[in-house]
Structure formats: structure tokens, C-alpha cells
């Protein structure tokens, strides 16, 4: 049927909408990594000495670490000396940056991405920190939030303005020695977002960070640090895109969340890095360490992720449930189409009494995509009456793709209750034909079935983003059924 082939070809071509490059003058470090690269980054950011030393310690540690080999992903060795570790848009002056001073080209870029930063056009009810390559280029609603005592700014600004808070919490959830990529990040991170919600404050709007990689050959290493003090609550969203390039680019971020007594953090990610082309050429390597620490009693951290982009995704947002009665949640949709690979899941570490965790993972594989769920539920001796419920479902589209599930369970307390359910299903030709026979096109049918499959996760996303995520899912699977 030539008409449907044509349609699919057209859809595939229009697949990634964010693949453009912004032509803007950049201030970039030469490629390569050594101590002077780190000193350069730190100097550019006018960092205090303790932070430089922290970076250098991490770097020295990293030199002795090995690449993680256990994930079910395959890629040629990364040559770390060819990466550009610092790349920032040229600043026009050295004065304090305010949104009115942002380069119009950058404003235009974010507008094209659907994230208007200009005062008049801002997204209602969402404060945005926009990170372009290595640095934050602007944070909206900063003053409004400050009135409630909420600190929301770029990581660099936080180091300058709130050094005590940064120093107290930085690296306490994901220590620099945690893993290879976390150590690398600690050494070379250039910016990211910082957020502190003071005692008893419910953040009145969604906070979000929007990450954009622009420069070729550059890596993006940002760090997010989010602290909810006693009784505070916040909902945070993260989005990301990158230009289409033939070479692979590395994104190795670290996110640390800290919830004190009775605090609640909801962290949602819609990850749409460039996934590479249909032949598997190019795309982002998304090697990310995200962890939340329920440090206080009755605290709650909830991760929701929709992972549609990246050539390779390697991430396990987890929760350390230390406070008694604390709750950890992980809701995930991961899509791999064409030659994408994802090895993703979560870690729930139960330390406190009566701690509960819920894991809902939906993996979708199409084309030659490989989709792996890897999860660890660990109940330590002190975690009496801990409970976990895990559900891992896989959906296959076509017969060239693969889905794999590796649930690890370690229980050291006999009062714990751990439940695991898993399923694998396939979108069958008979389902598609049934929909076709009712007037529904193949593309809409796939999208309908996939959205039905993911609805428990989409339910967890903030309203506006749930709609966005559904559309995104449709786009990433376009052309997956012929």
C-alpha cells in the first residue's frame, strides 16, 4: 500500500521538532578534561574555594573509577577528552543578569520550544529556569516567589547568594563518589537549578527547569538541588531538547531532592533529548543520577518520568526512605523506537519504620528499540512494616524490539511486605485492524493503545504536561507500525 508508506515516510521526517540550532556567539572552553578545565569552570563562575576543592576531589576520585558495565545498553567508548565541558552564550556585559537583558536570540529559541520567558508571555502558573548548554540564562517569577521566602534560581546564583544552604546540602544525597557519571558531574557541572522551599510553605506554582543543549561536541552537566523544609511542598517539572546532530552528545546530570519532616516533593520529567535518526545515528547519551532523600518523618517524594528521547537513557531516580512513615513513588513511561536504548528504573531504599514505596513502570519498545526496567527494592533491618508495591509492564510494537525486566529485591526485615507484578504485551495486527475497521487510522490506534497503557503514569503528571506528554508519545512512535 503505497499511500500508507508515503504517510509514514512523511511522519518520520517531521518527527523531531526541536532539532534546530541557535546561531549565537558562545564562550566555550577548548575540548578536554584535566584539572585546569575544572579550575577554568570554577573561575568563570567566580566560585568560592571550598567548591573548587570539592570539584577537584570529585575529579581525582573519578580518575580512578570505571565505567558502569552492568546496564543493558551498548555504545562505543566515549572519549572524554573530545568533549567541550564549558559552553555559555557570550554575555553582553558583566552586570547582574535580569530577564530583560537576555539575548533576543535566546528568547526566540525558548519561544520556539514553547517556553516563553518574556514577562508578558510567560506560562501562567509556571516558574521556569532556562538552562542553555552550560548555564542558566534566566529564571522567571523569581521575585514573586521570593515574597513567600521561596528561593528559586540558577545553581550559580545560589552558590553566590545562598552559599550556606548550598554547602549544607550539596552532595548529601548523591555523593561525588556515587558512580562514574555522578563523579564526572561533580567535577565539571556548570549550572543547573536550585530551589529551597521554607518551613510550612506550599509553593503556589509549578517550578520547572528547561534544559537545552545547543553547541556541538559539548556535554551538558547540570545539577539540580531541591530542598523542601519542614511541612513544605512543591511540584517541579523538568523538560529538555537538543538539536539533531550526527554525533552523540553526553548529558550527565545529577538531581538531589531533600524532603524534611512532613515535606512533599513531586518531581516530573518529560525527557525529549534528540533520540538519533531512524538508523540510530546521533542522539544524546542521557546518563543521569537522580535521587531523593526522605530525610524527615512523614515526608514524601514522588518521581514521574516520561522518557521519549535520547539515543541511550541510563537513569534510576530513587528514594532513600529514612524518615519514619515516609513515602517514595516512581511512575515511569519509557519509549524506545528505532535504535534507542533505555535502561531505566528506580531504587527504593527503606530505612525508616512504616515506610511505603510504589513503583509503576511502563516500557514501550518499537522498531529496534531495547527497553529495560531495572529496579531495586531494599528493606533494611530497621524498616519494620515497610511496604512496597511494584508493577512493571512492557508493550511491544513490532517484532524487532525487546523488553527486559530486572527487579532486584533485598529484604532484611521480616515484617516487610513486598509485591511485584509484571506483564508483557504486544500491539497486535488484529487490534490495529479492529480500530481501522471502526474508522480509526493506524497512527491514532497506536497512540490510543499506548496512551491507554500509560494512563496510570500520565495521571500523576500535572494537567498541562499530561497533555503534552501524550502528544509527545504519539510523535515518538510515529511510523512505528507500517
Amino acid at each position, binding site marked *: *500500500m503505497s*499511500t*500508507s508508506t508515503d504517510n509514514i515516510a512523511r511522519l518520520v521526517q517531521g518527527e523531531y521538532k526541536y532539532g534546530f540550532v541557535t546561531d549565537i556567539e558562545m564562550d566555550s572552553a577548548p575540548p578536554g578534561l584535566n584539572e585546569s578545565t575544572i579550575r577554568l569552570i570554577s573561575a568563570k563562575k567566580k566560585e568560592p574555594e571550598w567548591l573548587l576543592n570539592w570539584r577537584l576531589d570529585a575529579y581525582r576520585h573519578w580518575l580512578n573509577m570505571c565505567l558502569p558495565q552492568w546496564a543493558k545498553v551498548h555504545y562505543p567508548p566515549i572519549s572524554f577528552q573530545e568533549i567541550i565541558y564549558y559552553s555559555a552564550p557570550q554575555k553582553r556585559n558583566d552586570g547582574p543578569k535580569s530577564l530583560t537583558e537576555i539575548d533576543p536570540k535566546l528568547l526566540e529559541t525558548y519561544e520556539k520550544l514553547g517556553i516563553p520567558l518574556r514577562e508578558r508571555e510567560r506560562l501562567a502558573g509556571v516558574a521556569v529556569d532556562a538552562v542553555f548548554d552550560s548555564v542558566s540564562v534566566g529564571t522567571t517569577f523569581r521575585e514573586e516567589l521570593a515574597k513567600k521566602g521561596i528561593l528559586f534560581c540558577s545553581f550559580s546564583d545560589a552558590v553566590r547568594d545562598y552559599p550556606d544552604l548550598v554547602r549544607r546540602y550539596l552532595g548529601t544525597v548523591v555523593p561525588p563518589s556515587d558512580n562514574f557519571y555522578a563523579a564526572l558531574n561533580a567535577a565539571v557541572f556548570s549550572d543547573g537549578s536550585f530551589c529551597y522551599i521554607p518551613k510550612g510553605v506550599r509553593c503556589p506554582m509549578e517550578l520547572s527547569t528547561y534544559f537545552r543543549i545547543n553547541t556541538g561536541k559539548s556535554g551538558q552537566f547540570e545539577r539540580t538541588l531541591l530542598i523542601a523544609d519542614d511541612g513544605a511542598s512543591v511540584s517541579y517539572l523538568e523538560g529538555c531538547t537538543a538539536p539533531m546532530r550526527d554525533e552523540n552528545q553526553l548529558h550527565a546530570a545529577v538531581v538531589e531532592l531533600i524532603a524534611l519532616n512532613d515535606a512533599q516533593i513531586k518531581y516530573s520529567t518529560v525527557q525529549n533529548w534528540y533520540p538519533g535518526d531512524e538508523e540510530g545515528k546521533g542522539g544524546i547519551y542521557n546518563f543521569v543520577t537522580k535521587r531523593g532523600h526522605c530525610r524527615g518523618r512523614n515526608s514524601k517524594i514522588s518521581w514521574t518520568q516520561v522518557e521519549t528521547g535520547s539515543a541511550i537513557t541510563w537513569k534510576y531516580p530513587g528514594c532513600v526512605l529514612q524518615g519514619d512513615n515516609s513515602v517514595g513513588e516512581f511512575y515511569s513511561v519509557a519509549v524506545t523506537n528505532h535504535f534507542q536504548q533505555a535502561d531505566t528504573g528506580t531504587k527504593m531504599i527503606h530505612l525508616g519504620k512504616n515506610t511505603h514505596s510504589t513503583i509503576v513502570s511502563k516500557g514501550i519498545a518499537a522498531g529496534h528499540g531495547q527497553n529495560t526496567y531495572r529496579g531495586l527494592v531494599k528493606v533494611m533491618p530497621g524498616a519494620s512494616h515497610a511496604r512496597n508495591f511494584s508493577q512493571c509492564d512492557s508493550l511491544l510494537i513490532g517484532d524487532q524490539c525487546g523488553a527486559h525486566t530486572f527487579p532486584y529485591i533485598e529484604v532484611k526485615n521480616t515484617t516487610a511486605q513486598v509485591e511485584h507484578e509484571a506483564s508483557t*504485551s504486544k500491539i*497486535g*495486527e*488484529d*487490534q490495529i*485492524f*479492529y*480500530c*481501522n*475497521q*471502526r*474508522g*480509526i*487510522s*493506524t497512527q*491514532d490506534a497506536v497512540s*490510543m*493503545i499506548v*496512551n*491507554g*497503557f500509560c*494512563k496510570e503514569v500520565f495521571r500523576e503528571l500535572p494537567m498541562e504536561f499530561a497533555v503534552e506528554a501524550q502528544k509527545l508519545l504519539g510523535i515518538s512512535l510515529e511510523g512505528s507500525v507500517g
Partner: protein
Amino acid sequence: MTEPILKIRGLKAGVVDRSILNGIDLTIFPGETHALMGPNGSGKSTLAAVLAGREGYEVTDGEVWYAGKNLLELDPEDRAKEGLFLAFQYPVEIPGVNSTYFLKAAYNELRKYRGEPELDAADFLNFVKARVKLLELDESLLRRPVNEGFSGGEKKRNEIFQMAVLEPKLAILDETDSGLDIDALKIVANGVCKLRNAHNAQLVITHYQRLLNYIVPDRVHVLSEGRIVQSGDKELAMELEERGYDWLTKEAATA
């Protein structure tokens, strides 16, 4: 003379290494109901699949005209939007997709195709409620995923319910009666009869004459080894009930 809804001429079709339909001629006019009978494996469902445009079947000869259009050139979804409806012999489960949502999507595709405005959720629900009564369908089924966990009979009733919502020009019912208890059979048959009018037509595939007591056909055809070997009026169905197919298939073989 009015134009036929369906005109099949010399249709041959099959799968890669095997021919299943070996030259079928059939003409159905608006307002008519035809019954298609025949032994297991004679090609009844294959004919339905070819008419609906299922992938995997290759038409090797012949032509099919549907309301003046060359049916075989249309994509399956366009055939549906042109008013061709197939009630499946084995309705498919679509986990996670809510029945009402599914049906609304199908209904709105039809409306878009006809250039009519789409119905919103509230209007659609009102419209559906009226149709539910017609089929005495258990409303709770509509809140469940499409066919998932439905009993055999519920699935069949759901097919006719969808038909009642989509109001097709040509409905092909593939053994909708098998698996129904006697009360359900009456309800379904009754529903089909209420939907019959001078502008639409039905092709009813069945093994049992009893269905034809409720949905009285204008013509009855017997399919054997991919050919229509006998056509007649409703009396033919009675005769088949008594004598089976043997006498016909033998006749066809010697002819």
C-alpha cells in the same frame, strides 16, 4: 433502477500460498438483507475480511463495487468511514482503552469524514445512552476497556451496539449469533431489525437457521470452497437445516 450497495464480480482472493475465494459474484441492493451460509472453512470470514480490507489477503482477480466506488482501492479506515461495518466473528480486546472513548473516536472520525462537527464528550454520552436502550446493553460495559474480559456473548452484543452507534450503510455480521443465549439472540436480532431501513443493507453470516427467523433474509447464499454454490430465498435456509450441506457440495463438485 437503484444502484446496488455492493456488487462483487468474479472475486478471487487468498493468502500467499493458497487461494481461498475462487470466483464470487454477489449483488446487494439497498433495503436488502442477505444471509451467507456454508460449511466451516468455506471462506465466509475471508470474504468479510477482504471486503473490510484486512492485510494479508491478496485479491488475485475480480472487482468489488461499493456504493459506486471501487472498494478495493480504499484503505480499511476509509471503507469504514464510507459506512462499511464488520461485526467480527472474534471481537478483539484492546486493554487500557475505554469503550466509550473508543466509540467516540470512531464516531467522530465518521463525522469528520462527512464534514460534520465532532461531538463533545457530553453530547456523545447522551447519544450513546439512547442507543444503549435499543440493545438493552449493560451500561457498565461502556466504562470498561474495549472487550477486555467481556464474556463471549457480551463481546457479540458489543459489536452490534457499535453498529447501532455508527449506523453503517452495509453491515457484515460474521456469526454474531454464535455464543449468544436465546434471550440475547432475540435482543440482538431485534436491534438489527430496528436498524434496517430502505437505504442500508446487511450481509449476515451464520450457521443457524434460527437467527433467520428473527432477521428474515431476502436472499440466502451457500458458500463452499470459495464459491457460491446455491442461492435462494429463506426456504433454502430451512432446507439446509434439514439436509446439511452435503447434497450441495456434491452437486457443485459434479457440476
